[in-house]
């Protein structure tokens, strides 16, 4: 059994820092909810923080930072394209409210 990539393997200390950082982001999210920001602003900031956490989890916990760049380029842009395209859903979600008969 050979040890792998010891040169590029982050130490446990890095992982603990990342873990602490993610806990901090979760704390910020929770505080934001009670900070009387508008709902649109809340949604936007929660999404930004969630994507930040996802990026950190991908890069460090899931090790993507230490793989060859091609792996990232193969996996992630296509997925993001799919998600970007799904934003076409919103136009119809908004129309639901204008086309529906008022609820009695």
């Amino acid at each position, binding site marked *: 059994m050979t040890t792998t990539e010891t040169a590029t393997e982050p130490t446990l200390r890095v992982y603990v820092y990342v873990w602490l950082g993610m806990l901090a982001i979760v704390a910020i999210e929770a505080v934001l909810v009670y900070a009387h920001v508008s*709902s649109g602003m809340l949604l936007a900031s929660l999404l930004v923080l969630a994507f930040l956490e996802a990026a950190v989890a991908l890069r460090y*916990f*899931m090790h993507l930072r230490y793989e060859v760049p091609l*792996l990232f380029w193969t996996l992630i842009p296509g997925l993001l394209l799919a998600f970007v395209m799904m934003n076409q859903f*919103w136009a119809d979600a908004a129309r639901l409210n204008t086309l*529906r008969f008022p609820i009695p």
Partner: protein
Amino acid sequence: MSDSAMTAGSMHGAAMEPSPFLITSRKLTMWLFIVADAATFGAILFGYGYLRFGSPNWTKPFTFSPNIINGLVMTVVLLTSSLTMLCGVAAAREGRSGATMKWLGATILLGVTFAVLHLREWTGMFHEGWSLSKNPMGGSVQVGALFFSITGLHLLHVISGVIAITVIAIGFRARKFTAGHVETTGLYWHFVDLVWMFVFPLLYLLNVR
């Protein structure tokens, strides 16, 4: 040098082109599965956004105590389980079997804790009258439907992950599985954690009364 066990039925490494990603097929396949699964969660979360955006009578079911406190504890538990998993992978790489078992055991325990906390919350909501088709607050029935189906899908992933880690841990001790298997399972476990980083803010924090 042989990597014939790298993939079942493959040939000898010297007779093959290296993978463009320089990782094992097993790990690549786990990555591809994660991409596919991410599309699944993405689609269902977009569906949630669509129906919520289109529901004028959406109701927000959660209060700080107990729901959000519970949710925060669950988040910390799941995040910590990612950390113990990382320690387990590191120990497995160094060939420390005892330490690997200890860390994987901790991960399993945290995973089970998450599932128990989740199910306890579900039961509480069922008692309040929530279900897939009922909203005790009188608003849109989509609230319960979406909450239970999305968290249910995630919970299914947590439970599958706990089972997978258990199997891998037992196999690792019996020297049937290797550090590579532990690492690949870890990849999946971190993904379950990653999905929760979207589910928690979107389903819990945006539904605080």
